[in-house]
Each structure stands twice: as structure tokens, then as C-alpha cells.
């Protein structure tokens, strides 16, 4: 069974503060992804990576940075958090190659006050 974990599971941050969301996968997958989930928008891709040291912008990257220091870990960084970034964030991993399943973590609920 694929295993993707996220930490923290819940986070309350203040406007202007820095937030780091962490993701770890034990699947040895090359690809990793960060999504946010909002009612009426579904899952939207923020950043993704296809290996250690690489990060790519997704569909909604503004206000977010990503870091992939190793095959297993992929972080999402909000340098200056804003209330509009209040959301549920999901990390996912997938094998290199096209048309393959993505495995999702349990999600992080972030509230920015």
C-alpha cells in the first residue's frame, strides 16, 4: 500500500507569517505534487516535482514556494501567509511516466487568521 504522510495535520497561522507544510512518501516515487482543495474548485495543482532538487510551477503557484530536498520529502512554503490561503492542502506522489495513479496524503487543514 502506498504511503504518503503530511505534517502538520492542522495548522493555524497569522497573516504575514511563514508556514511550512511537509510531505513524506515511502513509495520511492519520482513525482510529487501539492494541491489545495476548496469548495467549488476541486483540487488545484500548486507545485510539483519529478525528482530530488526539482520543483515546477503548477496552475496556481502565486504565493507559494516548494522544496524537494530528497526523493522522499516535498515541502510547501508560504513565506507571507494570507487569509486567502486558508484551505485544505494535499500532497500526492506518483511514478514517473504518463497516465499513472497519484497517491494522496491525508491532507493538512490550514487556517490563516
Amino acid at each position: 500500500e502506498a504511503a504518503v504522510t503530511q505534517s502538520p495535520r492542522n495548522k493555524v497561522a497569522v497573516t504575514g507569517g511563514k508556514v511550512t507544510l511537509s510531505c513524506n512518501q515511502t513509495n520511492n516515487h519520482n513525482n510529487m505534487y501539492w494541491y489545495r482543495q476548496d469548495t467549488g474548485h476541486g483540487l488545484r495543482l500548486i507545485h510539483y516535482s519529478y525528482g530530488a532538487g526539482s520543483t515546477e510551477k503548477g496552475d496556481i503557484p502565486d504565493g507559494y514556494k516548494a522544496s524537494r530536498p530528497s526523493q522522499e520529502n516535498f515541502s510547501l512554503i508560504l513565506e507571507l501567509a494570507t487569509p486567502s490561503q486558508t484551505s485544505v492542502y494535499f500532497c500526492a506522489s506518483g511514478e514517473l511516466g504518463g497516465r499513472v495513479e497519484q497517491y494522496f496524503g491525508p491532507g493538512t487543514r490550514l487556517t490563516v487568521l
Partner: protein
Amino acid sequence: GDSVTQTEGLVTLTKGLPVMLNCTYQTTYSPFLFWYVQHLNEAPKLLLKSSTDNKRTEHQGFYATLHKSSSSFHLQKSSVQLSDSALYFCALSEWDNSAGNKLTFGIGTRVLVRP
């Protein structure tokens, strides 16, 4: 760019009845479609997938057929159970040579099954 449309935001029905969730897509590539299911406070999980035109694919009582002529991949089940209450996402794979696999999701359809 690619897009996925799910027209129903909420579907409420009684246990034992059939359900169909609509999914249509737009892409310039050869389509590869997925259905993911997300139960309350859980992660999305793959339900089924297909890239074969006019072939029915099934899993856990759910089934869908990709129809390239109408750009559709509707999800169906003959008899819903209480445990089918969840959020269902249709997703389209975009082959990106640099990333290998990007998914475009629809906004989701919430299914609520009543006793």
C-alpha cells in the same frame, strides 16, 4: 488547456437506487480519465481509470465508459449504499514530458445517500 466539467454539485438519493455522475472533458491529447473518491476527512483515492474508447471499466460496483466521440466519462452504479456517500472527482491526465503526469480535476460531485 485541458479542462474537466462535472455538472452536478450535489446528488442526493435513497439507498438502493442507481446513480450517474456526469463528467466531460476537453483535451488536445489522447485522453486518460480517472475517477477519484474522497470520503469525509480522508484522502482522495483512485476508484477507476480508462483510456480505451467504448470499453467499460469497473471497480467496487462502480463503472464508467470512456466515449471519445462525446468527450465523456460518466460514473455509474446500479444500487448505491450508505457507504457511497462521498465526494467524487473526475480527473484528466495531461502528458507533460517534463513532469510525466499532471492531473486536471473537476470541481467534484458530492453524493449523499439516505436510508
